[in-house]
């Protein structure tokens, strides 16, 4: 689950990998070699493939730990295509949809010279459960995984491997249409058997990709060097995967984004990984767009949730009225041009997205609908976090509700624990508030199952903030979740999107854009970007 830009990066990692597979190395005009100086605003949550679940982490390790499958290096919908990574081909799926068979490419080696074995996949999956990774819920559908998650011993019965042939067979308890996407996440990227079952951020495991992480100093930075076994072994086994242009990259954590912008402008750093702060966005865009700066789309939805289990939002008319009152055009300005207005669950770029507009902004209509609904309780609490401009979006929402006639109280929580607090059902007055969602992987189920399905309503760590549970729609989510994604399923997801918006548990207002900002030494056009995995390190090249 991704709740913020940080979480968003998880996918970028895998995407980066895949992007590289297709697009890197295409630029032949730039220089080869050199040291890339990079700045991040924060150190990733973990520098460990089984643990990291943030944008920073996935971006940082995308060129280091390649999963069995990965994503195609392209923008938009094209970038959602899953392609082979360490596996030879895409999985062969049995007719009942419960057995996935893959074969490891022969001749692969880790950066320490040890061979990559099929059993390393099983080891990585078990390690993920043993270290209680946030990604483990994606894999509990594997036979024996739930039991292993509890006992942490005895192995996962549903994963069988053969090191000799490289065969990997995964048995699921029931068909799972998102499994292919989930095999492309770094949570199950192979690591050598015997890798300690603990956070290895200070000494990351050996790499399978073209770069290896060295000198990792949590909180301060890290470096990349070329994987000595990439050229010798892996690049031959994976000829389509890009080898990268720079010989080395040095990453420094600079916590002030304003300083980062200044430093990139002055050429002290070649790339800042995090987005430009809103206050500098227009200035940088106007000065450097097309030469050092480019706006990137993301697959994300920003929305206001309304708790359907508590008055006044237990009345669908009240929720629909709020949808009419919220104006995405105003929020586009609040996000200083870094948001594109939409009013639906699925964002552009996600398979199944079909544009519609059920609630064109009309405050008079909103007020009339609220009057007609005549809720007995107009006293509500509105929640948001401190991170700009989400805090301002929350203030805007609070103002809109007041204008409609609600008596509101605004609560702004620290972004570090915001989702923990609003995800805890025992928190008092969870009436309405702000949230966002960045895809875990490019599959529409990722926007319905965790956020809107009745079975996702949990006492703690709840992500279904609207507490919406519609039996018919829940059934449809479950049905589609078992099917492989195809045109028919995409159509069904588009219909589901509309049905949920008629139910109006959310007032969605937009999809976020991010940006890439580099120094004038870097060839901006060569940088490969994928909406799931963002910029691909192997694509950076000096002019």
């Amino acid at each position: 689950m991704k709740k913020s830009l940080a979480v968003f990066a998880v996918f970028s990692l895998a995407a980066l990998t895949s992007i590289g597979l297709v697009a890197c190395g295409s630029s032949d005009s730039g220089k080869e070699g050199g040291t890339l100086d990079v700045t991040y605003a924060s150190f990733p949550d973990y520098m460990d493939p089984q643990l990291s679940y943030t944008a920073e982490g996935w971006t940082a390790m995308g060129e280091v730990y390649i999963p069995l499958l990965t994503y195609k290096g392209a923008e938009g919908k094209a970038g959602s295509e899953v392609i082979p990574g360490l596996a030879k081909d895409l999985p062969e799926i049995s007719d009942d949809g419960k057995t996935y068979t893959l074969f490891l490419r022969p001749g692969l080696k880790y950066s320490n010279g040890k061979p990559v074995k099929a059993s390393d996949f099983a080891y990585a999956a078990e390690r993920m459960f043993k270290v209680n990774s946030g990604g483990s819920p994606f894999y509990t559908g594997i036979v024996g995984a739930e039991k292993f998650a509890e006992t942490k011993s005895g192995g996962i019965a549903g994963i069988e491997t053969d090191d000799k042939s490289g065969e990997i067979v995964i048995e699921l308890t029931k068909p799972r249409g998102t499994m292919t996407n989930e095999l492309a996440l770094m949570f199950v990227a192979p690591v050598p058997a015997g890798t300690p079952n603990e956070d290895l951020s200070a000494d990351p495991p050996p790499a399978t990709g073209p770069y290896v992480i060295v000198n990792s100093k949590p909180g301060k930075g890290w470096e990349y060097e070329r994987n000595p076994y990439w050229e010798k072994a892996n690049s031959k086994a994976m000829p389509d995967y890009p080898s990268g242009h720079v010989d080395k990259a040095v990453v420094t954590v600079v916590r002030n984004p304003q300083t980062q912008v200044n430093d990139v402008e002055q050429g002290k750093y070649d790339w800042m990984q995090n987005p430009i702060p809103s206050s500098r966005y227009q200035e940088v865009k106007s000065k450097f767009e097309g030469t050092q700066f480019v706006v990137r789309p993301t697959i994300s939805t920003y929305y206001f949730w309304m708790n359907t289990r508590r008055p006044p939002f237990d009345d669908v008319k009240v929720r629909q009225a709020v949808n009419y009152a919220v104006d995405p055009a105003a929020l586009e300005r609040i996000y200083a041009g870094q948001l594109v207005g939409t009013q639906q669950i699925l964002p552009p770029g996600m398979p199944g997205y079909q544009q519609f507009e059920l609630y064109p902004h009309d405050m008079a209509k909103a007020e009339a609908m609220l009057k007609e609904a005549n809720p007995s309780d107009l006293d509500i609490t509105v929640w948001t976090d401190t991170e700009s401009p989400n805090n301002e979006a929350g203030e805007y929402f609070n103002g809109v509700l007041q204008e409609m006639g609600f008596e509101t109280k605004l609560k702004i929580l620290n972004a570090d624990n915001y989702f923990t607090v609003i995800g805890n059902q025992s928190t008092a007055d969870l009436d309405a508030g702000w949230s966002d969602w960045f895809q875990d992987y490019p599959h529409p189920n990722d926007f319905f199952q965790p956020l809107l399905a009745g079975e996702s309503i949990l006492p703690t760590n709840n992500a279904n903030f609207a507490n919406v549970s519609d039996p018919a729609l829940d059934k449809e989510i479950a049905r589609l979740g078992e099917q492989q994604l195809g045109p028919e399923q995409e159509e069904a997801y588009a219909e589901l999107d509309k049905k949920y918006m008629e139910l109006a548990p959310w007032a969605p207002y937009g999809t976020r854009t991010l940006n890439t900002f580099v120094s004038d030494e870097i060839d901006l056009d060569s940088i490969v970007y994928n909406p799931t995995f963002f910029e691909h390190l192997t694509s950076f090249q000096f002019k």
Partner: protein
Amino acid sequence: MEAVSADERGPWRLALRRFLRNRLAVAFLGLFVLIVLFVLAAPLWAEHVAETGPNQTHTLQKLQVGDETREVVSPAGLPIGPQWFEAGGKFFLGADSRLGRDEMVRLMYGGRTSLFIGIVSGLITTIVATILGLLAGYYRGWVDSVIARVLDVIWSLPVLLFGIALGVSLAVGGLKIGPLELSGGSIWVPIFVICVFTVPYMARPLRGEVLALSEKEFVEAAVAQGAGPLRVMFAEILPNLASTIIVFFTLNIANNMLFEAALSFLGAGVQPPNSSWGSMISIGEELLTTQPLLAIIPGTMILLTVLALNIVGDGLRDALDPRSKVRLEAHAGTVEPEGASV
């Protein structure tokens, strides 16, 4: 007019006369009064000139200035700058942020909040500190030890860091201790935080004065006449502390306003969407390079108010306790006859 000798004037009238002779203090008292009037006029300005409330957003609104149409917030998210009277007083100081709220209206309402917090917390601090100072200084012994140690503990804490931690946690969850209940986001949360940390700064010196006063003959006489501890403390000692307390009170208001501004700037004071001058500086800081006035104007208001209160406080001290001025000037080598300042 009938001449009145110095002996016939009461001490308060003498103090007033001394204060009025201090032109600087009187001028800054006038400035403080003007600031108070300015913030009290907030509803009038909001309703009749700006025609908007302090928290009302105008992100997509357009202003008609002559033939020109100006957007309150540009598509790039930049708020409009000061319009002065070009738009009939609307957005006189521009818009505050990408939410497009009227900066002038928020400045006036924010001033009310800042002054309210400063005055109320100053008052509470003064009352609590006076009671603690009297109890500790009069009873001495274990009462003094307990109070002194508690004050020492509070004094030893890093005030701003602890204040931020307390302010943030209370801003979210509120506070409930017996009958005392503060809801998160309430204006009483920063008042509570400020009072907790400023009481020791007044209680400690007051305790010292009480210790000295309780040795005086008039206290012994009162005790000899059978006066109980409460009467001695509140009827005999307290009136003799009045000048000190009044001076402390004015300085407390100034200091507490600065404390509130710091807390609000760091997100631990007045909670959005309400404004205070501190929170306005915080909002303006993000746009310092493009709209510097958004931070400078509320900052200037804090500066002027605190300066005025400090100078008035100094003036009151000189007026109520002229000997302290003589003592101070003795250090500087400019001693005047005590009578000259009377």
